[in-house]
């Protein structure tokens, strides 16, 4: 028999999550499990904590509550750089419900927004006060215990941050792959580049060989060639109904090139 409990604070909710219980944020994934009679849990834990829905500026970073929806991100002036990633998630009704926190834990091929957060080197702020780089949160998420209260990201300069989702169905469709790039420059050359792929493995992942190949180069065809060669190094794309792993690997460099050097429309 299923029970639902709503706690006032995220800390209390975190304390109530255990083996047979699941935390529900927007519920776009968890309600499917409920509707289809998933036997893996019998307790739903929720919170009415308003802090989870807040977006705030703190120095050079923006804090995004884990309960902020994709629709709210897309409408936020402070988060204009993340709007394309937020708008790429589902249709309008899904975006009115799907949260930032839930996207961190969404299984393949989902996690488009997490891909953008990964390329921005986001920090995950856990409900118990711990802070952890998103990269290790994603790598260890099978085992991660606890609730995310917020994520924080640096604010990139205009045009330094780019996002691209490749889907078969437009305007809405699950990812064949998602790509995000943070391309800071120093003296005209790329520095501290971040390249992340979504739907190219169990979770979103950075491609460090590709990042290293981009650092120190100009963003032009010749400069990016070694990075394109290394585009999928370390990634293990899966076969699914949308595309085979082989296909994903083959087309990834082409989409990365389109992200790095957007084609000029004549």
């Amino acid at each position, binding site marked *: 028999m299923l029970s639902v409990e709503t706690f006032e604070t995220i800390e209390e909710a975190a304390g109530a999550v255990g083996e047979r219980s699941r935390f529900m944020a927007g519920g776009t994934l968890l309600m499917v499990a409920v509707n289809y009679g998933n036997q893996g849990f019998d307790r*739903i834990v929720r919170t009415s904590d308003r802090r989870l829905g807040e977006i705030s500026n703190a120095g050079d970073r923006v804090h995004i509550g884990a309960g902020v929806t994709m629709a709210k991100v897309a409408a936020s002036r402070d988060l204009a750089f993340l709007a394309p990633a937020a708008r790429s998630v589902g249709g309008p009704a899904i975006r009115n419900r799907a949260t930032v926190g839930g996207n961190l834990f969404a299984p393949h091929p989902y996690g488009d927004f997490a891909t953008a957060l990964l390329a921005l080197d986001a920090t995950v702020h856990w409900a118990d006060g711990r802070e952890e780089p998103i990269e290790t949160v994603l790598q260890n998420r099978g085992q991660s215990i606890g609730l995310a209260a917020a994520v924080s990201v640096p604010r990139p300069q205009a045009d330094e941050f780019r996002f691209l989702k490749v889907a078969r169905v437009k305007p809405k469709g699950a990812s064949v792959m998602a790509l995000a790039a943070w391309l800071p420059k120093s003296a005209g050359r790329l520095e501290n580049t971040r390249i992340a792929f979504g739907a190219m493995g169990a979770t979103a992942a950075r491609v460090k060989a590709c990042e290293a190949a981009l650092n120190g180069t100009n963003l032009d065809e010749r400069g990016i060639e070694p990075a394109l060669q290394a585009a999928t190094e370390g990634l293990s794309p899966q076969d699914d109904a949308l595309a085979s792993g082989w296909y994903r690997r083959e087309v990834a460099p082409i989409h990365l090139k389109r992200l790095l050097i957007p084609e000029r429309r004549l």
Partner: protein
Amino acid sequence: MEKTALNFTLNGAETGVFVDAGANLLDVLRRGVGDQTPKYGCGQGSCGACSVLIDGELHLSCLTLAETVAGKSVETTAGLAGGPELHALQKAFIDGFAAQCGYCTPGMLMAARALLDSNPNPSRDDVAEAISGNICRCTGYEPIIDAILAAASGSGRRFG
């Protein structure tokens, strides 16, 4: 299974119903309250047939934990017409042959209503985006997009 009381406003009318823990809003609307206009297509957020407005915002009732609408306003296609006078969107759908089997229609109408409430003069792309979470297996979408644009421009035929 233990039931809890749930009170909300449905198409402007105060509504009370007892719900099971974990029940989704679609089930409560159809079986608990008897409003059959939101449809069950998939129960997993993929088809949009169950779309409703909650406090004016578009939501999928199959993915909405029923108890989360306590004290809120829920609107369904049953509340679109004002008595015998059909809503402009309903008229435009009839005129434009935008409903064939009609299964997707209530969801399409609610998605369109949410769009026009926030953007009364949408472009064709805006409309395509607004109904992108709603699947139609009959019409090929074009008549639906045309009908929504006709309703927005006020060019739909007037009844009554």
